[in-house]
């Protein structure tokens, strides 16, 4: 399956991916309206160690996802393409998946249930907004 990969060599640490992610998942059509005065909760996060290295991390969509195995309510599942998806109605907010994810790619949303990267398949962007908005092709969406 096509996954989001990061090439830290080209990551500028500009954090645009985080804002593009938050906007894509906001349901709004105007970024300023969506993100003005909002503390964003992006599903991709830029890790940085000073100026030494920066790179963005999001769900790896593992082929044997430990988060799905740990989910007590059956809210996490893989769809037919292999994308690890979350059913917000089933999620009980136990946060077990947040604890087990080795990449730290799952977080809590503003309603107390979890959120994670779903490759923008469920939002208006249609394909990963972080990839489309990266100014230096440091984030790519491809089959490997």
């Amino acid at each position, binding site marked *: 399956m096509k996954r989001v990969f990061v090439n830290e*060599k*080209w990551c*500028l*640490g*500009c*954090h*645009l991916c*985080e*804002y*593009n992610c938050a*906007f894509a998942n906001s349901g709004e059509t105007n*970024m*300023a309206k969506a*993100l*003005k005065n*909002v503390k964003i909760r992006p599903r991709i996060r830029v890790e940085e160690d000073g*100026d030494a290295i920066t790179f963005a991390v999001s769900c790896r969509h593992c082929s044997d996802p430990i988060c799905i195995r740990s989910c007590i309510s059956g809210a996490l599942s893989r769809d037919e393409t292999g994308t690890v998806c979350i059913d917000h109605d089933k999620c009980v907010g136990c946060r077990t998946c947040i604890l087990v994810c080795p990449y730290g790619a799952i977080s809590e949303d503003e309603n107390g249930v979890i959120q994670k990267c779903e490759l923008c398949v469920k939002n208006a962007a249609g394909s990963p907004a972080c990839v489309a*908005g990266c*100014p*230096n*092709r*440091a984030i790519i969406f491809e089959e490997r």
Partner: protein
Amino acid sequence: MGINYIYPEFEVVRNDARCIRCRVCERQCSNQVHQYDKDLDLMISDESKCVNCKRCVSLCPTRALKVVKSDCLLRENANWSNDNINEVYKQAGSGGVLLSSMGNPKPFPVYWDKILINASQVTNPSIDPLREPMETKVFLGKKGSDIKHDENGKLITKLPPQLELSMPVMFSAMSYGSISYNAHESLARAATALGICYNTGEGGLHEDFYCYGPNTVVQVASGRFGVFKDYLEAGAAVEIKIGQGAKPGIGGHLPGTKIVGDISRTRMIPEGSDAISPAPHHDIYSIEDLRQLVFSLKEATEYKKPVIVKVAAVHNIAAIASGIARSGADIIAIDGYRGGTGAAPTRIRDNVGIPIELALASVDKRLRDEGIRNDVSLVVGGSIRSSSDVVKAIALGADACYIATAALLALGCHLCRTCHTGLCNWGIATQKPELVKRLNPDIGSERLINLMNAWRHEIKELMGGMGINSIEALRGNRLMLRGVGLNEKELEILGISHAGE
């Protein structure tokens, strides 16, 4: 610190209704114009540091930013312009020579914009380049002027070494040091993919780029940085740089602070030492001396590579070019006064040299008159901005064009003209690793390839319109050009008629 006489040239205008405080502008500005104030929850700007490179404007996700020219001007004066006055203030404060980057921005005439191209109507057919073959390939080098036969009466077809280009455009010299590793890689990869050449400039050739040798012109300039056997053998042609359009008669000075790591190794000079290119080559004080260097380089490369001699367009360019043609050079490159630079004294850049259009026309005519036009190919540069400039240059007599500013624009340059600060926000004219990485050569080379392919299409369209199906048939075909708004003398030098004639 006393009185600050100069009001900032630009204003940073932020539409706060759109600003989402993502701080991309702050992170991306190497001049530290933007800053987030936590207490006020506001982005604040220090426009005195802004160079108007538009990096923040381009990356702002909500288009909340714009940079505009300040309207806080000095009292209007047709003689003492704001620039004149501010330059006096600067020099009165610093006591130093003013430095500038990129090409001459002054409002001198641009002859390309006063020349129009012909097209076929009724009496001769135009050609549709999408339906019929159209040749844009050129060979640069000496062409025999007469036909020779061997003892069996067979035609001798062996030509002196030629530089083969898929289209009549090359990326001109920009040294590794003046531009970044990633900018060089972008140029090298694009030139290879396009079947044209890029030029190392005078900073030597980084060991990683020897693999692009067949599409590389290696330069030998007055500093001789990084010149050795492997370097000369790596390139497809060797260029002796005598002068540069932006600063004729002036050498170069790359400060020691930029001579670090790979740049020091590639230039073969110690880290931290200033790289000073003398104004003249100290072994070339005459055409005879030039001939010695031309043939030294030919000997060193076993007569397998054409030798280019690059000069700036100056007042006696026709006589100089005639001398160069007789020195044994295969190709003459002429750089007009609008050519770019990584750093030049402002007064030199803005006041020395002549327009490339006039230089080209007079050199081509002089070489034809003297019967030595076939002994050399002519390459012209110094602000070739578009495919129509290329077509006009070819019709005026050039074999090919050198482009550099246009190539840098394709890589993201916004012509802010502050290369000499070394803080290029676009990762081009800088050696700071965190800035260099902003130019991903995958993107850079792709954009250069796009630009050249677009120009190639346009060149074919323009040629087709004239009913010409080969670029060689357009060379020196001045009947295809007409001037508008030019005086008799200008038309005479350009060797073209006025529109309507």
